[in-house]
């Protein structure tokens, strides 16, 4: 597959603070790539460098065959993390305006705007001012404004933040549709569940560095499966089961413990269960749990993706 985006040894430094360090990865054409990490992991800085809004301290970017995002900006759609549109414009005017900045004729922009607003269930709000719309509606309008010119590459920075579960589901469908129509999608998020459902590929970031690049399944495979045992069981008895390690007592009530443990790669749950019965352990509940992307992230980086890693950068360096 051809790469729509290639980052090679990309770094960004704000004075003494290293926001992005030696970042390299590729996003293939027509795929959905999740750019994952906690706030402050360097995602927004990387996206701004890809778009050419900020210069890289070192490294190389290739997007849609150009080494400068500004040169191909008409072929890119961008939804920033913090959103806003002109409050006194109507959704149709706002979408058509941003479409026209990307080279779309105004009349075609208005036509597509109406069509896309209808498709997103905003037909009733077409003539309202932006300031009259709810936050969820405004975010939908902004997303439409970002893709109205039918870009080849779509970059969405934390697109799910601030949306309720229903709108999050709707947005997931929009992203799937974009990819189905041939667009390449790169979206950043710190909520792993969206990436698990959507992505062909994920890039995990922590403290400005890439922690992992690959498919969701590959990411999960880096982390062992978990066993959860409930009963009157001593931790030592659980540790003696085949393939079991890292035993932890999660809770204990009247001698009944919930014990969690990792199952080694290649280890089989039924072997552990069989051994438990053969050893006469008082097992009341036995559960084998597959690792999530969230677990994989913690396993790979030692960080919690929900934890803020952002650092206040003094002076003007933040803008460079």
């Amino acid at each position, binding site marked *: 597959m051809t790469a729509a985006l290639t980052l090679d040894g990309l770094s960004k430094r704000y004075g003494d603070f290293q926001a992005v360090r030696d970042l390299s990865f590729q996003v293939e054409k027509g795929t959905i790539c999740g750019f994952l990490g906690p706030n402050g992991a360097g995602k927004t800085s990387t996206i*701004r460098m890809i778009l050419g809004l900020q210069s890289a301290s070192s490294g190389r970017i290739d997007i849609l065959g150009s080494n400068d995002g500004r040169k191909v900006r008409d072929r890119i759609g961008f939804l*920033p993390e913090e959103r806003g549109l*002109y409050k006194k414009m109507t959704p149709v005017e706002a979408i058509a305006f941003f479409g026209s*900045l990307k080279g779309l004729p105004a009349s075609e922009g208005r036509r597509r705007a109406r069509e896309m607003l209808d498709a997103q269930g905003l037909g009733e709000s077409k003539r309202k001012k932006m300031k009259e719309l709810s936050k969820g509606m405004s975010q939908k309008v902004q997303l439409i404004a970002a893709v109205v010119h039918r870009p080849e590459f779509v970059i969405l920075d934390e697109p799910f933040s601030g949306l309720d579960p229903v709108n999050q589901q709707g947005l997931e469908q929009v992203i799937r549709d974009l990819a189905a129509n041939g667009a390449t999608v790169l979206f950043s998020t710190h909520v792993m569940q969206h990436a698990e459902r959507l992505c062909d590929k994920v890039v995990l970031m922590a403290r400005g560095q890439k922690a992992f690049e690959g498919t969701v399944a590959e990411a999960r495979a880096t982390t062992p499966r978990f066993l959860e045992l409930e009963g009157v069981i001593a931790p030592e008895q659980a540790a003696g089961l085949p393939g079991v390690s890292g035993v932890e007592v999660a809770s204990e009530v009247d001698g009944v413990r919930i014990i969690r443990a990792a199952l080694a790669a290649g280890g089989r749950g039924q072997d552990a269960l069989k051994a438990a019965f053969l050893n006469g352990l008082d097992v009341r509940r036995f559960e084998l749990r597959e690792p999530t992307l969230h677990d994989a992230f913690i396993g790979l980086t030692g960080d919690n993706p929900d934890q803020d890693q952002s650092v206040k950068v003094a002076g*003007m360096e933040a*803008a460079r």
Partner: protein
Amino acid sequence: MKRILLIARREYGAYARTVGFWLSLLAFPMFAVLGGGIPLLIKSSEPVNQVVLIEDGPAATGLATAVREALQADVDRRAAQAGEAKQAAQAMVPTGTEAGTEAASPMLNSAGASAVAALGRSRIRLVETPADLAAAPQGAEQQAMVNRYLGDELPKAERLDAVVFLTRKDGHPAARVWTARTTNNTVESFVSRSLRTANSRQVFEAAGIDPAVVAETERFDPEVTAFSPSSVSGGEVSFRDRAPAFIGLASGFILWSLIITGASILLNSVMEEKSNRILEVLLSSASATEILTGKVLGVALLTLTVMAAWGGIGATSLIGFAPDRAGEIGQVLLHGGMLGYFAAYMVGGYLMYAVLFAAIGAFCETPRDAQTLMGPIMMILVVPILVMQMALNTPDAPVVQILSWVPFFTPFLMLARLHADPPMIEIVGTMAGMFVTALFMVWVAGRAFRAGALSDVKLSWKSFVGAVKGGR
């Protein structure tokens, strides 16, 4: 280029489509009219003071008559002035043939006549001394009576505004003026003038000069005509000769207002986009230079709209009410090259300030954020306002000349100095300095704008300079 025009059009439309813009546009001429009308209104609505005169002892005999005569002379003089003003007002009303104009003329005449009549009225009315006050013996009893007439004790119709005790001190007229309000000095001033005249007459009479001769001498108003070899006619100085100085000063003020209005619109517009997170979206669709240029251009068009509206209102009013003066002002503007200079200074001045304000706006989300830099800038901007007035009478004063070379002051001060034909080297030199500075400011502001648009850093001189040095 297309993106620049799109941003400019949106910027223009965002303001030009609002009612507030057109209201604020009309506010300037409206306040100009009010600025001239309100003092007249205040003057014409001043209350008439009810005053009694009391000659304090035999030595004061004749002083009350002198004050009465002075009041009559004042009334006559005011009536004469009002008559002249009325004639002038009638001459200014256009004698058009259209029905509307004809219908408007009597109305205008009537309004003008009322205003003139109100202004022509004396603010002092001498009334008979109330019998009880006249009969009160000097001392505490008389003082108590005075306090009663000046206080709130009596019904309004019976109250007095002032009681004047006329006397002589060392042989000269003097007075003690009691007023109801401590801040009312109208009666005091009038009595002072009247007694000065009475004293003059007394002195001249003592020297054997006929009072009629003295009165005639006081009425004399010399006819003084100004001449200058540099006047348009080569002799007598007319309105046409003095117009360039006033037009230059007015142009300087108007240019200052336009530039500051435009730059402030730009500052607010960028701040709004920054706080609404629109700047980042815009930056993904257009370069910082395109955004800045588009915004500057859009607001420039707004400024031109304001200028056209003000110019249109001014020209229409002048042509309607003083067609002769309108012709002379037109000559100054067109043949004196004033319009050309105005356009050049407007471009340079607007560029310098607009891009600077836009760059500051890129760092701010609220006007409060902008205060750090805007405070000193606004203080500096007051300087040309003060110096421009000096340039009216002394356009070649060293301070005016030196400050004209400061590029940020050049547009305003040079416009105010043009009437004095400054040396060509000064005109060319200051204009070149202004344009070089404007280009430098575009470069500086472009870098700062780019950095500020994506920055969360609080605005300070350090962060601003850092942005200029660092750029993208």
